[in-house]
């Protein structure tokens, strides 16, 4: 098999990549990592693949990539003939990139809260939840505007990489004690995402919404 994913089932970042691989119906090999409690991603062997010591890592015909957002772009660029997931038109490309950066940046506060609550990571949980709520506010405001415009997705008329990248840690937020009561547009968007063809849930996310 050409594509190999260094994976951890409970990782929302790995889940981003698994979602796109499923949406594109791509075969791939999984290398399960003992992220917790073994901290295999911090081992010397793994740091030779990714010196940052982070999951996921993807190998594809001699290309080795880290960072979930970069991997999404690689897969869409190489395999998505429809061009839907990574639109190239000047009106959409930059916006998709902007929300990809948001997913790998501000939204990761929700991941931190989950690591604290579920896996006992020692970090400032109040700050993590506060920052996650601030990020959710921004995404919910944007999705409210999209609803007023008659749109469902973060950018344009179809789901894009921006939706895939923003979905996991938003949908997993209650694992970190972050409620979504105050974000009605965000909840509508999550529900729409659940109904995408070939959608698969992960632990902590309901199969149906």
């Amino acid at each position: 098999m050409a594509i190999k994913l260094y994976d951890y089932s409970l990782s929302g970042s790995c889940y981003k990549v698994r979602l796109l691989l499923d949406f594109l119906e791509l075969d791939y090999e999984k290398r399960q990592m003992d992220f917790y409690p073994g901290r295999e991603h911090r081992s010397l062997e793994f740091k030779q693949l990714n010196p940052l010591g982070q999951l996921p890592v993807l190998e594809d015909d001699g290309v080795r990539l880290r960072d979930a957002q970069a991997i999404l772009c690689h897969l869409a660029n190489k395999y998505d003939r429809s061009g839907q997931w990574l639109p190239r038109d000047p009106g959409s490309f930059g916006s998709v990139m902007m929300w990809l950066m948001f997913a790998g940046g501000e939204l990761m506060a929700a991941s931190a809260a989950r690591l604290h609550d579920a896996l006992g990571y020692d970090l400032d949980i109040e700050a993590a939840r506060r920052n996650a709520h601030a990020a959710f506010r921004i995404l919910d405001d944007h999705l409210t505007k999209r609803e007023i415009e008659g749109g469902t997705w973060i950018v344009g008329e179809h789901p894009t990489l921006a939706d895939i990248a923003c979905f996991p840690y938003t949908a997993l937020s209650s694992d970190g004690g972050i409620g979504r009561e105050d974000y009605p547009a965000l909840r509508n968007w999550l529900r729409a995402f659940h109904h995408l063809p070939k959608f698969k849930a992960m632990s902590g996310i309901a199969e149906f919404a």
Partner: protein
Amino acid sequence: MARTRDTVVLNEWVACGWPDKVAVGESYRTAIFGQDIEVARLGKDAFGIFELDEAGRRGRQLPVQVRYCCVFTTLGEPTRPLPEIAEFDEPDRRIASCGSVGVHTSPYRIIENFLDMAHFSFVHTDILGAEDRTEVLAYKTEHRRDVDEIWAIDCQFFQPAASRASKDGQMTTYAYRVMSPFSVMLYKNVFGDDTRNDAICVFVQPMQETECLAYMPMALVDPDSAMASIIDFQQTIFLQDRVILENQRPALLPLDPGREVPTRADASSIAFRRWLKAQNLQFGIYEKQAA
């Protein structure tokens, strides 16, 4: 945070870590029953555990046992020893420590969920249960008075992927064993071999009444799967449960039989709750709130 005055639970051994949680020479702080403690790793399997006062100063040193990939301690005077689980001593077993997972609910809800088969098809769809085969066949429960344990035996459930070693669906045979209010395990027949059982435990560390850590050591017959894959399988299952557990209300466990209406499939839960009630537990129980 106040330490409970419930002497029944204080007299139990409870898990408070696993050996590789910290390096030798390091320590960490945690809590049991509302009491802050410090766990210091002195050697590979040597630990010093201390109560901490409100200023964080070390006080009384607590007893320690290291077994089943867990570090156990107690704040009281246990009459019940740690359980004997022979499978962990069998030479060909794969022993997996899955670390701990935090769960915001009563310790007994974690135990009770572990005993429940009716949720397999809905929460662990395509793994421990299938949506078109949801029936929980009749099984037996026992209070084994010589060891004061609750057992559920002759349990059967159809499982599409009973373990990481499974290559196909099977009718899995289970026996469940509640060894203390904070520890439970199951025996399930190994894929393709009815003569041997995988042994899977859950030890609960009750930090506070509705704040727990769950430890899931396993002793499996599975020569082929990578350890990372075995751990990944178990954690996938447990985090499917966790989101359900944290949404159960009330979080404290009700023991009044009229509060939550059981069905026949809940026979093990009924036996467990009766047994808890007979012990006159207070910590983590709903009713005392109303009293």
